[in-house]
């Protein structure tokens, strides 16, 4: 507890530790830092000589136009998964920064049945989506196990290992999809079926294109009938509900909380850290992997290194933090980030600003959010002092 007198006035700023943190305070700090971040970000525009008011009015227009909102959902949907993926590990202070890699590995695995299809091996059509879903979850989960194991066994820093794995998975995609690579659309193995398909559509192969063949229609996630919204959103909502249940009503959620409070305390309480962290990271990697499944089956309909450019995994980190590790809040904050990113895309076209400005904004919001945590733990008041 301390008070600092403001010189020349009768007032002082008093800082007190909060004994009880009311539930709404973290949420208020989150919202305040998002708003402050956007306003302060205006300075970036001023620095490059663009009127921030002009920019905000453009963003305002984007935020209400239906087509842009569609685009925002499109960006938000994968982020919903990469952010929800972090809820459990972050709650136990296991810093999984590998959402990006687990997302990419999920996308790779989801592609496997499609690659077989274009090579001439069929499955019943209704099986594709469920199998791709499972493969993405399992592959992402396994990609998450390695850092978990290394951390639990030998205390290898999980932040660094997960980051390195991100680069490795992206290079894996480059290798698969580069011209001459095994999954490149020009691979002779796909020739018969894929070329016939393209001919039907009236399209030609572009020489030197980096990417797999497109996913056939029956293996794409459809829109919800009668709306413009992809049905992936329903999957996201169901998973948010399950995660919420796990966090609040199960032993797993309880153990995660105990470890998050104190790793040593958890040890004395008889919690098997190795087992817990492996389960949590399998779920976490799996959910990020599902993001990859959604990314390719709902929107891109193919796999290419482009998938790594958007940085869905990294955005998930900030979203999870802003959402205070609440899976349902993750859905809403992801949507907010979708609007932010979509706006940046349009600004790039209209004002010739790099779309990386969205990343700058996200970073700024993140910094303010971290600083804002001070107000979660401490009460700051202006008090009147005598003399």
């Amino acid at each position, binding site marked *: 507890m301390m008070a600092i007198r403001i010189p020349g006035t009768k007032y002082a700023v008093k800082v007190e530790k909060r004994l009880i943190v009311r539930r709404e305070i973290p949420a208020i700090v989150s919202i305040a830092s998002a708003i402050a971040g956007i306003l302060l970000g205006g300075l970036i525009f001023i620095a490059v000589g663009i009127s921030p008011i002009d920019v905000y009015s453009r963003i305002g227009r984007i935020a209400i136009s239906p087509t842009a909102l569609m685009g925002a959902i499109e960006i938000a949907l994968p982020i919903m998964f990469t952010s929800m993926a972090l809820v459990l590990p972050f709650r136990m202070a296991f810093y999984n920064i590998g959402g990006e890699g687990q997302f990419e590995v999920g996308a790779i695995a989801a592609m496997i049945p499609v690659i077989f299809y274009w090579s001439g091996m069929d499955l019943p059509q209704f099986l594709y989506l469920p199998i791709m879903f499972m493969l993405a979850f399992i592959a992402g989960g396994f990609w998450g196990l390695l850092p978990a194991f290394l951390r639990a066994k030998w205390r290898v820093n999980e932040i*660094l290992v997960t980051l*390195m794995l991100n680069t490795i998975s992206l290079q894996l995609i480059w290798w698969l999809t580069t011209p001459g690579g095994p999954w490149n659309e020009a691979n002779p193995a796909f020739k018969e079926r894929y070329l016939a398909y393209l001919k039907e559509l009236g399209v030609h192969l572009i020489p030197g294109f980096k990417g797999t063949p497109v996913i056939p229609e029956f293996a794409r996630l459809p829109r919800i009938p009668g709306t413009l919204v992809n049905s992936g959103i329903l999957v996201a909502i169901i998973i948010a509900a399950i995660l919420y249940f796990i966090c609040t009503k199960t032993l797993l959620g309880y153990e995660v909380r105990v470890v998050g409070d104190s790793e040593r305390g958890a040890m004395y309480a008889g919690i098997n850290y190795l087992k817990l962290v492996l389960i949590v990271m399998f779920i976490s990697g799996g959910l990020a992997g599902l993001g990859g499944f959604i990314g390719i089956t709902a929107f891109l309909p193919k796999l290419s290194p482009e998938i790594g450019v958007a940085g869905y995994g990294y955005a998930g980190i900030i979203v999870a933090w802003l959402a205070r590790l609440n899976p349902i809040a993750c859905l809403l904050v992801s949507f907010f980030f979708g609007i932010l990113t979509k706006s940046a895309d349009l600004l790039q076209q209209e004002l010739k600003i790099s779309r990386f400005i969205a*990343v700058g904004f996200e970073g700024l919001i993140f910094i303010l959010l*971290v*600083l804002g945590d001070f107000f979660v733990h401490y009460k700051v008041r202006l008090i009147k002092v005598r003399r």
Partner: protein
Amino acid sequence: MVELTMINQFLIGALTVGTIYLIATLGEVLAERSGIVNLGLEGLMEVGATVGIIVAIFTENPWLGFLTAFITAAIISVIHAFACITLKLNQFASGLALYIFGLGIGITFRGYARDVMLGPKELMKIPKIRLYPVKIPLLGDLPVIGALFSLNVMAYFAVILSIVFWFILFRTRIGLDIRSVGENPAAADAAGINVFRLRYIAVIIGGGMAGLSGAYLMLAHTPQIMGAPIILGRGWIAIALVIFSFWNPLRALLGAYLFGGLEIAYFWLQGIEIFKGVIPLLKAVPHVSAIILLTIMSIEALRRRIGAPEALGKPYSRE
């Protein structure tokens, strides 16, 4: 003889690229010795790269580029220092925030500079301001070890810096103070050492070094101005190298040049027949190596009971 010059070329490349890692790693060693992790290196390096090249172009002086890159990154690091030291907040979160912020504005401004500020006339200046290897007469002509005498000026400067950092940390009073602040801040505080001030200094200088490293990458390795990431994970490898070096500036030399070599090896390996089909995977070699090395180091640290500064990552408060 042909093979000897090839070895020579390889070593020059490895040492030149290794210097990128070395400068950033030294800064992080300093910060972590005082007890503060800075995960923002990657972002600070992007900012340093942007500031360094733009200032160097406009002033036609690479040294002013290095200086301003250092200062800019140091100023941004004040945010991190304030969050971690004064407000005692989560160091990982603050570092990650700095990373994403630096990445975003570093790339945005670089792209903006290329599109709006820099005309063909300015871009023509790049060959004039960039650093070239300087061959020291006679010594530079020696087979193989001649590479040690054919580097750019900053590469030599970085070696001197690591000796200076080592000397300060292990042979001076202020170095002892910094280390004690990182090991046991309460005891250091009781002994009259200003914990908060030393940590601020270490974090700010450490962050500045990351900016310097980014500017070096631009001005001595790949002077390309584009609106896309250019650091490409090197900042994270630098953080891994801190662990590899066991927080010792002289051991950082070894790790930095090793990873310089691994990165440069890509250009040699891709020419070899058996790697023809997997060229993109070769780019992941440094990252796979980093995971393996980190694991070995962590096992070693557990076995020998050595490791990170005791108070690393923990905020210190007097309460």
